[in-house]
């Protein structure tokens, strides 16, 4: 640990990093089982005094869609969603993500849930932020076993979107021109540790800066304003991390849909 004293939680640091990546946009959508990206999106909205629109797909309250589950995808196809989050059982150095299986597809050794909307949203949402807390050679691999969605496409393939960054428990990578670059290392972690635990090659400056810790103002916003909103969608996460109470028994469900 490089910092003498930490007054923030890992989840708060990661949400702060992601909120900065979101930037000044109109609409952020957050998919299933993504409590930290959801925290980040709600934080960005608080900082922007109501902007961007945030659609938490499992939420009743933070979700304006009224035309069924397809509306999100139709919206994205038109360019009406600026930021989305994806993850992967494996992520490789070309930005390919694998949400399906390890080993031969017909006879997998390990099976993950499936590709969800990735094989579409990765192409059409301009800023896709990859988020995977487990930063290990198991998750960050030289080449994924199954391409749920590729990091880059041939020039003639319609692709206004794609990955811009990968956030892990250890560091922040940016993604451009088909590869990752180390941007910053989170407090308490080192470049050597990042190299040791990353299965793919990446660009890095001679000295990588430390990811800035969340400011007291940010921590206050997360704990006092964001956490209670989050509790509707992620009651177990909000209670476990922030001690936030569940506001209503009629949440959109505690597991993904």
């Amino acid at each position, binding site marked *: 640990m490089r910092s003498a004293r930490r007054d923030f939680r890992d989840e708060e640091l990661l949400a702060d990093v992601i909120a900065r990546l979101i930037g000044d946009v109109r609409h952020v959508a957050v998919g*299933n*089982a993504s409590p930290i990206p959801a925290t980040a999106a709600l934080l960005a909205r608080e900082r922007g005094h109501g902007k961007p629109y945030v659609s938490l797909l*499992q939420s*009743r309250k933070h979700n304006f*869609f*009224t*035309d*069924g*589950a*397809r*509306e999100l*995808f139709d919206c994205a*196809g038109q360019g009406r969603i600026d930021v989305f989050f994806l993850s992967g059982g494996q992520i490789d150095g070309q930005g390919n993500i694998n*949400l*399906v*299986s390890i080993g031969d*597809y*017909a*006879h*997998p*050794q*390990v*099976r*993950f*849930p*499936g*590709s*969800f*909307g*990735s*094989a*579409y*949203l*990765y*192409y*059409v949402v301009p800023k896709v932020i990859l988020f995977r807390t487990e930063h290990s050679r198991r998750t960050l691999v030289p080449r994924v076993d*199954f*391409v*749920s*969605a*590729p990091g880059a*496409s*041939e020039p*003639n*393939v*319609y692709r206004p979107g794609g990955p811009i960054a990968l956030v892990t428990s250890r560091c922040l990578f940016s993604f451009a021109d088909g590869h990752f670059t180390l941007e910053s290392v989170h407090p308490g972690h080192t470049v050597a540790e990042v190299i040791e635990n990353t299965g793919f090659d990446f660009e890095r400056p001679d000295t990588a800066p430390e990811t800035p810790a969340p400011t007291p103002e940010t921590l206050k916003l997360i704990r006092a304003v964001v956490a209670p909103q989050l509790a509707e969608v*992620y009651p*177990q*996460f909000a209670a476990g991390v922030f001690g936030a109470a569940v506001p209503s*028994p*009629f*949440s*959109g*469900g*505690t*597991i*993904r*849909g």
Partner: protein
Amino acid sequence: MTDMRDNGMAKPTTSLDEALAPIQDGCLLVVPREVSGVPMAATRALIRRSVKRLHLVALPTSSLQADLLIGAACIATLETSAVSLGEFGPAPRFTAAVTSGAIAMKDATCPALHAGLQAAEKGVPFMPLRGLIGSDVLKYRDDWKAIDNPFGDCDPIVLLPAIKPEVALFHAPMADRFGNVWIGRQRELATMAHAAVKTVVTVEKLHDGDLLADPLLAAGTLPGFYVDSVAVAERGCWPLPLPDHYAADAEHLALYAKLAATAEGFAEYLDRYVYEKRAA
């Protein structure tokens, strides 16, 4: 209750087992995602009836429902974008069945399933969709085809064949005696019903009156024209949620995740919660 079939209206409500009669062995069945009203009481009834060889299309994902049907050996083919128990971890019977090859898996991506059903509801043979090109999702779907956009210039795009389910099955808050079903904002339920040959619905309760007579309710109503049978099943989504009505039963789902981790535990779960055998 008056039989409305004579004037083209849907059948009156019936018992759960009677309502499920259209779902026969080998049926191409479409069911909704977790936040849209998963018919769990109906699913347990199908397992008790030992339905076999279903081709299940879960629009666009599934959780407990697919896992239960797979574990109970009701499914031959599963077509969906993901199956998991969310905060409660991987779907154990799904995972075991895919790794052992016990079911045929047709991996999709969410909008592809929506698009396939939309093609069916329009009565057209296919729907184009962006994305997909260069993915292994496309590579392993020999029923999907990339063509050059006939209106563009060197612009490849994927065509998805229409998905025409034999039966759509879901749970909704209420239906009236004309077979009209109030689905609220869960519009994908209407798409499912439009696309399917037959639609079977379970509901929390019967609405006294005509849902189409009130414009506020009519906007969220699936007309009985599309509905073949309706059965009342109170708390019909349990242990999954019915949004705006009741939350998921987290304790029960945690118990399921624990038991279903092994074949023996899963069998015990079926005995206790599906077959409802009393302890000796």
